[in-house]
């Protein structure tokens, strides 16, 4: 249930003790074996005949405030990465030889135990990677499936994990953990899924006690709050607020421009604008065959079309407080329109909104499925605009000449972005993506070396 607390500060000592016991069971397995088991559970979420998927699809719309068709699209997109093959590939992408999670390995050589000794240090370093003895993950609720990803990452590095899913993301996390416990009790015992409200700082503080690694997702404020409660002996990994932008070059504004607009619309709609992978502002180059304002109209048309496929109604139609926020934002944009600085296109019953900005304008955060579109004379000007926003910039969607992409990528990543991606792949980064600039597994482990 959304918002229901199911743990107290006192319960946490027992949970910690149980997880400590479960660590031996985890360490007795190979990383490859763990990936195999997790992948077996994950694949069930993609199988239409599986009751696990059906349970997920039944509860997801209400909990995540997504319409049922969009909830299904989100689950499909997420579950792609929950298969054994993808998880093995994730391990390989991060560790070259994932056996380093199982025992000491001579880097660039075979496992040390195969030979029992090193070759005078010339063959490489004898190293081993350990997941934390206790990993505490404080996740956020905007995008369902993020907490399952967090859980998978922990277990792949064999870290017993206490996870607090986001308020809108408890269902998938619980279903995954329960299914895991069914198929493999030893692995299942290494996971505790508990929910409490972020404001209950006493519970958070008690949860972090004894952690070797603390991972926090969420707004800057939420991440700061967890960081301040993290013990000095624990490593802190923070995934603070991020947002995406988009770049459309003039080469993409000729034949096929409708397709580009459709890709932009899908990237905007996929998580109802909640994700760091959603483009919040799209910069469109001037002097193409289609002018930026016309491109904004195409995106608006695509969003209106998506309304039939993925309705917004689950997102905000029935929620008066969210609708009130939309009224505030649209009303403020209308004042900018009256001042000649912007033009707004929006759904009526539907909550999608496109704002085309003809001048530098400041706007409130547009809630729901929405995007701001601005013309620029040259895409090369965009990196210089990023400025301080670089600390919050993550994904950059791109459509245009591929030869220009590398130059733009250099400048944009220098400014803070960590991911340049075609719009059509923007919503679902692969499991092995450099999440906010770091390998998601590598950032969890502690290395050890025998010299």
């Amino acid at each position, binding site marked *: 249930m959304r918002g229901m607390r199911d743990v107290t500060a006192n319960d946490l000592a027992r949970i910690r003790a149980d997880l400590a016991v479960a660590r031996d069971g985890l360490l007795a397995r190979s990383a490859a074996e763990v990936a195999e088991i997790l992948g077996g559970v994950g694949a069930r979420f993609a199988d239409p005949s599986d009751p696990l998927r059906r349970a997920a699809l039944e509860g997801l719309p209400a909990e995540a405030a997504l319409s049922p068709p969009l909830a299904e699209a989100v689950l499909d997109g997420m579950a792609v990465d929950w298969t054994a093959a993808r998880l093995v590939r994730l391990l390989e992408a991060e560790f070259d030889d994932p056996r380093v999670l199982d025992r000491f390995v001579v880097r660039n050589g075979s496992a040390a135990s195969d030979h029992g000794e090193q070759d005078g240090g010339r063959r490489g370093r004898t190293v081993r990677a350990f997941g934390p003895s206790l990993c505490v993950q404080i996740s956020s609720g905007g995008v369902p499936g993020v907490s399952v990803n967090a859980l998978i990452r922990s277990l792949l590095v064999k870290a017993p994990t206490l996870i607090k899913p986001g308020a809108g993301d408890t269902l998938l996390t619980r279903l995954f953990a329960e299914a895991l416990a069914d198929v493999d009790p030893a692995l299942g015992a290494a996971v505790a899924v508990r929910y409490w409200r972020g404001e209950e700082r006493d519970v958070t503080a008690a949860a972090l006690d004894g952690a070797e690694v603390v991972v926090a997702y969420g707004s*800057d404020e939420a991440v700061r709050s967890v960081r301040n409660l993290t013990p000095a002996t624990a490593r802190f990994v923070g995934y603070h*607020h991020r947002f995406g932008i988009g770049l459309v070059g003039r080469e993409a504004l000729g034949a096929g421009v409708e397709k580009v607009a459709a890709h932009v619309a899908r990237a905007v709609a996929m998580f109802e604008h909640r994700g760091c992978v959603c483009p919040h502002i799209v910069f469109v180059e001037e002097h193409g065959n289609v002018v930026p304002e016309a491109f904004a109209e195409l995106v608006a048309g695509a969003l209106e079309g998506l309304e039939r496929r993925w309705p917004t109604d689950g997102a905000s139609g029935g929620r008066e407080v969210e609708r*009130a926020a939309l009224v*505030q934002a649209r*009303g*403020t944009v*209308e004042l900018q329109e009256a001042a000649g600085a912007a033009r707004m296109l929006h759904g009526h019953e539907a909550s999608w909104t496109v704002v085309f900005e003809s001048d530098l304008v400041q706007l409130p955060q547009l*809630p729901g499925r929405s995007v701001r579109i601005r013309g620029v004379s040259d895409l090369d000007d965009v990196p210089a*605009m990023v400025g301080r*926003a670089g600390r919050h910039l993550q994904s950059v969607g791109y459509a245009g000449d591929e030869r220009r992409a590398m130059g733009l990528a250099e400048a944009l990543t220098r400014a803070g972005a960590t991911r340049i991606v075609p719009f059509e792949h923007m919503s679902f980064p692969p499991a092995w993506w450099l999440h906010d600039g770091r390998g998601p597994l590598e950032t969890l482990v502690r290395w050890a070396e025998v010299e």
Partner: protein
Amino acid sequence: MNCPAVDGQLQAWSDDDFGAMAREVFSWQFELCQPYRGLCERRGITPSSVSDWREIPAVPSTAFKYFDFVSVPDDFAGEGLDALFETSGTTQGSERRGRHAVPRASLYRASFHHPFRLALLPDVERMPVVSLIPSVDEAPRSSLSSMVEMAVEEFGSGVEWLVDGDGVWRADAVDVLHASQTPVLILGTALAFLHLLEQFAEGSVRLADGSRIMETGGFKGARRSVARHELYTSISVATSVPEHRIVNEYGMTELLSQMYEPVLAEGPDAQGWHVAPPWLRVRILDPTSLAEQGEGEEGIIAFFDLANLGSVSHIVTEDVGVIEGGRLRLMGRAPGSNPRGCSRAMDDLMSASGSGP
């Protein structure tokens, strides 16, 4: 035109009387406030086209963060504003603040006086005030501080300021309450009362009978969410002021008029229902169509405040509520409708000098 009396018992104004004044106010604001006029013209609405005050365009309260709505004649420019209020931000300052210009404080004072008397001092002329809200010297941009200052001037027989502009409490805050022998009026926000309660860790204070409390600010933006009932019970236990002598005030920086729950005059049954003065009209709008909702139907709260003469009077808020029997019940506000850190990050991006058209 005939101006309905503002003093006395605050009799309700007829819709005709209110509407006539509202249209006159609209003409003034349409003429003098450029961003507002732009919005009205865009919608094809002018003072001469309006037959009912409800047709007058409303601005969202959020827009006070992005536009300066000032309705003053050109020859006013040299005289300066009497006040410029700002909405409170977070301690990190990551949120943009709304600004409300007040050309003439006299109207603000006039709209404050009688509703406050009726809600807080229906039975006595003056009483000692204890403020958990900083003074105007400490917080010159706070409309709430300004209001408390007016309360002290017009209804106070002495005042103790317990909190400074940085939110730091006087070391002897609890002693001040212990020392009071006569009935006092305590003014504070919900958050301030939570802080005060923490200082009462050892027992409570017995305030003289006839003491009363005004609580405002609700829990908007507060990190700790404690149910209101829980808060009032705790305050009552700590101070021995009965729960039904705690008056909730509903106001906002963007409005110069205030609403109160008339519990002192009417008793506990009035709890939870706010009363507007005659020059402030409250409506509930459907969240999607923005059509006016009927009695008892939940929706977005909109105000037409004649006291806002110097800015814009018709305002749609982000609060949700319901009206019954002419009284307003507050239901809530979009939680985190503006994710912190996010809006500022976007501001950072959009304020950079890009290529203009």
